[in-house]
């Protein structure tokens, strides 16, 4: 796998994690009729969101660190 | 190492620790949980009832003690004064009690005085022996050479009465700084010991006259009792008019703010009188029946008398008769009796106030004439003159208007200003009526009604506070005047100045105005003992010995716990043993008296204590041995009819005696009303006193305010040069009490900085921005002396543009927390001529100029 593909897949993966966390795992949006509107559906959901953000940024570092097809850095 | 490797290993390490951390968190929970639950089982919880030590009114406290350690102070629910709550000071006291900066053992000074002190720790035996020796030796030479200076006495029977009585020490107190001008005025005028507060339950219209509603106590109390009654009364529709150079104190609760110029309250009160008479909203029956308004006055200002009795003009017979015989006394007119022109005192009064119009008052106090007129109109309407209300089966006059006033009495014309304010209420028939003006918690006629009326001017030599002197015949005992007398005894006719001073819960260098005079006077004392939990600034500079007192961990009392409507009594009970080597004050005094040799015997401390505590057989203290402090309170409680003795208070905290019946509450409900005591609208004896002062050669500055009716005159401080164009006033903060709390860290955090409150327009016209450091310089219009200090300016729209304010409690330097807190306005105020009332009460006003530092 080229470093480009890896980096792009990390970026996409990161955004996927963010979307997953924000829309499906975080506290639901809407008029709060109960405590479930404040607590994330999965307790570590914000951590997953942050992991997604980190993944997106680390993609740039990974891209820079990995050698390209010619072996240079 | 290559970049790749470094980053890879960092990432590995990071993720490794994250995983480890989350695993650990789970473990930590289990470990911590296990240990703590075991400890919890061992802790026994107790609630010890006691009282607050910081404030003035000793609010009831329940101290929560777990495993022998006090962890929280909460309000005692059954105590009427604070009903289960505490102000921030009461809560914070727990930190004060444990404070590691308390004086832990008796201290004896090793360096010279007048500079920060160096002390060595001593044993109680050594310290007490040293103090007792000095007191004994001094009083043998001259009993007047020992003075006992209190700030707050929390057990009058033990300290003021028994100790001062047994040792013969001259008692100095703090009243002349607090509100005593008001006490003297009320004692003289209506014969009650207090200043002014309303019958909150029924009042509908209140003049909050200088009452710092949200920060301070009001008449005779500390903080939360009156504000709670005010808040409840507001919900019932009470209207509040705040009369104050600063709005802050009344803040939230003022429906209207009259921003009065400092020191001009007498003028406003007389203008209100003028309007009330003009409107005709005066209670003629009240004036005729209960005041000396109808008494006939001769041209020389004295009453017409027949066989020693005052006379009135009886319209029914058209002649002057003795008061008791008149059927229809008149208030106005000019008459002739035996060739002498006479007129009722009220006629004299009406002529006297003819020029005190609202328009005139506007030029003096800065309040628009229309506002004064409309307040007078509202007073007249709300007074409901002629109305009665049925209270507990008694039909009593209903006059729901009143004034709340306390510390504002401490101004140059304070004595007469309060007389003027009382006159407003007398005109409305509201004094001691339902909903109306009150002075004491219940009807308790005071001796000073006669004593002040009969005050005479004696020849010298005078004692150190100039009692019965040609300077201050009515005398509130001002420690600032004491300082002046010590520094120039010849001027004041004083022969001997004190040598030994015992400081009881007081810090004169910080809390008393005119620090310079206080410092100079204290330098003249030979031996100073401070009884205090902390090393006060006064002790730092002047104490030879410091005896560490406990804070609330001691027995003390008895303490009245009345909120005016419900009577109760309580005691201070120690929630834990006195910390470090401190001791309860009563313990200290017992040992001191023993060593001085005045404890036992028929004239000793114990004998006086039997009297002052009103102990009864068989609980009288034997006069031949030193008792335990707890045993004394046990004897007191049993003498009060509480069979369990002191154990009752140790368990319950407060003995609620019950609601005060209307028949004991209202002076007007007595039979005869006011016990026949006539209210002195016209102060004939004040005129007599003035003449005696003149005859003894007193200067005009001392006798000019001894007038039968309150009379406006230009204030001394206004004679300062025109560039001293601002009035400085000081004020209280709810977070603090005098100088004994500004260093308590929790409280200090709530009010961390001293500042100069200044109106933004006044500030910007002087080039001063919000937060700038400024010099505040005061000027003494009599001596020309100036004083100055630096402080940070803080913008306030809620203060008059010609007035600046500084809070009272700062300026300390000993406690580590006190450093850098800012200066005290007491450095800027002056004492002595022009800056005290005619009754020796301290004024807290001075002219200053403010400029950028």
């Amino acid at each position, binding site marked *: 796998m080229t470093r480009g593909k890896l980096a792009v897949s990390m970026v996409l993966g990161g955004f996927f994690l963010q979307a997953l966390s924000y829309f499906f795992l975080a*506290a639901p949006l809407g008029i*709060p009729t109960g405590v479930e*509107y*404040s607590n*994330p559906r999965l*307790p*570590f959901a*914000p*951590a997953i969101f942050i992991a997604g953000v980190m993944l997106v940024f680390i993609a740039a570092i990974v891209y820079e660190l990995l050698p390209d097809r010619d072996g240079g850095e | 190492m290559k970049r790749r490797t470094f980053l890879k290993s960092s990432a590995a390490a990071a993720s490794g620790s994250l995983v480890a951390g*989350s695993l650990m*968190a789970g473990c*930590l*929970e289990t470990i911590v*949980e296990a240990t703590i*639950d075991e400890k*919890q089982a061992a802790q026994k919880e107790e609630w010890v009832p006691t009282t607050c030590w910081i404030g003035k009114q000793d609010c009831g406290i329940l101290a929560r003690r777990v495993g022998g*350690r006090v*962890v929280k102070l*909460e309000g005692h629910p059954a105590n009427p004064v604070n009903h289960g*709550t*505490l*102000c*921030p000071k009461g*809560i*914070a006291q*727990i*930190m004060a009690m*444990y*404070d*590691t*900066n308390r004086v832990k053992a008796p201290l004896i000074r090793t360096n010279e005085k007048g500079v920060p002190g160096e002390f060595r720790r001593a044993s109680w035996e050594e310290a007490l022996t040293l103090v007792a020796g000095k007191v004994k030796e001094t009083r043998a030479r001259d009993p007047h050479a020992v003075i006992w200076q209190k700030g707050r006495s929390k057990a009058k029977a033990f300290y003021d009465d028994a100790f001062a009585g047994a040792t013969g020490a001259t008692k100095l107190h703090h009243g002349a700084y607090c509100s005593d001008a008001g006490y003297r005025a009320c004692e003289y005028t209506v014969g009650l010991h207090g200043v002014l507060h309303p019958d909150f339950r029924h009042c509908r219209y209140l003049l909050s006259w200088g009452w710092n509603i*949200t*920060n301070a106590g009001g008449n005779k109390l500390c*903080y939360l009792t009156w*504000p*709670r009654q005010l*808040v409840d009364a*507001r*919900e019932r529709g009470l209207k509040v008019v705040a009369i104050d150079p600063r*709005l*802050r104190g009344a*803040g*939230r609760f003022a429906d209207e*703010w009259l*921003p009065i110029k400092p020191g001009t309250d007498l003028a406003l009160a007389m203008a209100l009188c003028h309007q009330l008479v003009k409107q005709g909203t005066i209670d003629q029956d009240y004036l005729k029946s209960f005041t000396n308004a109808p008494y006939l006055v001769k041209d020389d200002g004295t009453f017409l008398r027949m066989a020693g009795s005052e006379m009135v003009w009886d319209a029914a017979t058209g002649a002057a008769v003795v008061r008791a015989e008149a059927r229809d006394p008149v208030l106005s007119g000019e008459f002739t009796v035996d060739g002498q022109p006479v007129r009722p005192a009220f006629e004299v009064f009406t002529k006297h106030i003819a020029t005190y119009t609202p328009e005139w008052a506007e030029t003096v106090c800065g309040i628009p004439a229309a506002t004064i007129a409309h307040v007078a109109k509202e007073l007249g309407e709300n007074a409901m003159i002629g109305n009665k209300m049925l209270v507990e089966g008694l039909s009593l006059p209903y006059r729901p208007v009143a004034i709340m006033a306390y510390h504002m009495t401490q101004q140059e014309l304070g004595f007469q200003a309060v007389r003027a304010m009382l006159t407003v209420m007398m005109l409305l028939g509201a004094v001691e009526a339902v909903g109306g003006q009150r002075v004491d918690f219940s009807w308790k006629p005071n001796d000073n009604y006669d004593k002040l009326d009969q005050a005479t001017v004696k020849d010298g030599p005078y004692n150190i506070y100039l009692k019965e002197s040609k300077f201050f015949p009515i005398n509130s005992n001002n420690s600032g005047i004491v300082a002046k007398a010590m520094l120039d005894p010849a001027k004041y006719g004083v022969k001997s100045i004190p040598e030994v001073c015992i400081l009881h819960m007081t810090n004169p260098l910080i809390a008393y105005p005119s620090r310079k005079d206080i410092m100079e006077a204290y330098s003249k004392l030979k031996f100073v003992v401070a009884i205090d939990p902390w090393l006060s600034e006064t002790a730092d500079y002047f104490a030879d010995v410091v005896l560490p007192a406990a804070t609330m961990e001691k027995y003390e009392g008895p303490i009245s716990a009345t909120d005016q409507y419900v009577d109760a009594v309580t005691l201070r009970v120690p929630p*834990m043993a006195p*910390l470090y080597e401190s001791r309860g004050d009563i313990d200290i005094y017992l040992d001191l008296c023993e060593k001085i040799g005045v404890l036992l015997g028929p004239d000793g401390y114990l004998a006086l204590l039997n009297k002052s505590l009103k102990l009864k057989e068989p609980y009288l203290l034997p006069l031949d041995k030193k008792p335990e402090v707890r045993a004394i309170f046990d004897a007191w409680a049993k003498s009060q009819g509480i069979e369990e003795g002191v154990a009752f208070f140790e368990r319950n905290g407060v003995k609620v005696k019950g609601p005060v019946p209307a028949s004991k509450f209202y002076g007007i409900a007595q039979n005869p009303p006011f016990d026949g005591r006539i209210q002195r609208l016209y102060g004939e004896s004040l005129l007599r006193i003035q003449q005696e002062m003149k005859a003894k050669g007193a200067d005009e500055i001392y006798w000019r305010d001894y007038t039968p009716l309150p009379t406006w005159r230009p204030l001394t401080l206004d004679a300062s040069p025109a560039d001293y164009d601002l009035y400085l006033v000081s004020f209280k903060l*709810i977070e603090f009490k005098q100088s004994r709390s500004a260093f308590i*860290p*929790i*409280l200090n*955090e*709530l009010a*961390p*900085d001293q500042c100069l409150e200044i*109106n933004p327009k006044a500030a910007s016209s002087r080039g001063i921005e919000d937060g700038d450091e400024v010099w505040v310089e005061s000027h003494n219009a009599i001596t020309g002396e100036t004083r100055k200090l630096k402080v940070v300016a*803080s913008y*306030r*729209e809620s203060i008059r543009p010609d007035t600046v304010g500084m809070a009272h409690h700062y300026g300390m330097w000993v406690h580590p*927390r006190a450093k850098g807190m800012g200066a005290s306005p007491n450095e800027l105020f002056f004492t002595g001529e022009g800056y005290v009332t005619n009754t020796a009460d301290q004024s807290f006003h001075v002219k200053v100029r403010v400029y950028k530092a």
Partner: protein
Amino acid sequence: MPRYGMVIDLDRCTGCRACMAACKVENNTPEGSFWMYVFRFEEGEYPNTRIWFMPRPCMHCDNAPCAKVCPVGARYKREDGIVATDWDRCIGCRYCEVACPYSVNYFNWRDPEENQYVNWKDPELEALSGGVIPPYKNPDLDRPCGPEKRHIAGASHVEGVIEKCTFCVHRVEAGKTTACAANCPEHAIIFGDLDDPASEPSQKLQRKSSFRLLEEAGTHPRVQYVGGTPHGHGWRQIQPAGKRS
């Protein structure tokens, strides 16, 4: 299950800050940490000046932004409505502090035992207090709370951890009211079950119209204010509490 909430009557509050002191001693909060804060406001121009006061605890929002963003689930909302912080689990990332529009979160930058106003490490005191810091430390704060048995009561346990008003959960579970409400001298702070029509806060809300802070933020606070008059513009804070400047 009670639905806990608070009603603060601005017509009664005198701005005395006794609630701030009571909260501090009850919960042993360190220096600079004001779980309850009382604002003193001034508005208008002399002589038409107005002064008013506003106590501000944590709002324990029904739509709690702080609970939504906690990455480790240390900040959570309980069934009874109390928004709690598990000081065992908190990692000190401060996202809740960023998310909260009311600024009620306080971060422990220092070891709380070093931050309790006074140097309590005095041998003469330790002999009396058993070395506990502060010497008036509340023993109830170490107890795990709720059916979830988590350490959510009190302050000052760990450095590097966030803390905020807990509606005195350790007192509430023992059947008492919050420290601030219990101590208020004017009875201006009232805590209780909003679902019970006979409870004091419910009664207050029936009698007086109420408002909530930052309604537009959509947080649905459980703390409601009654009384007072709407402020004009040009209001500003006077006499702030906190560190000496």
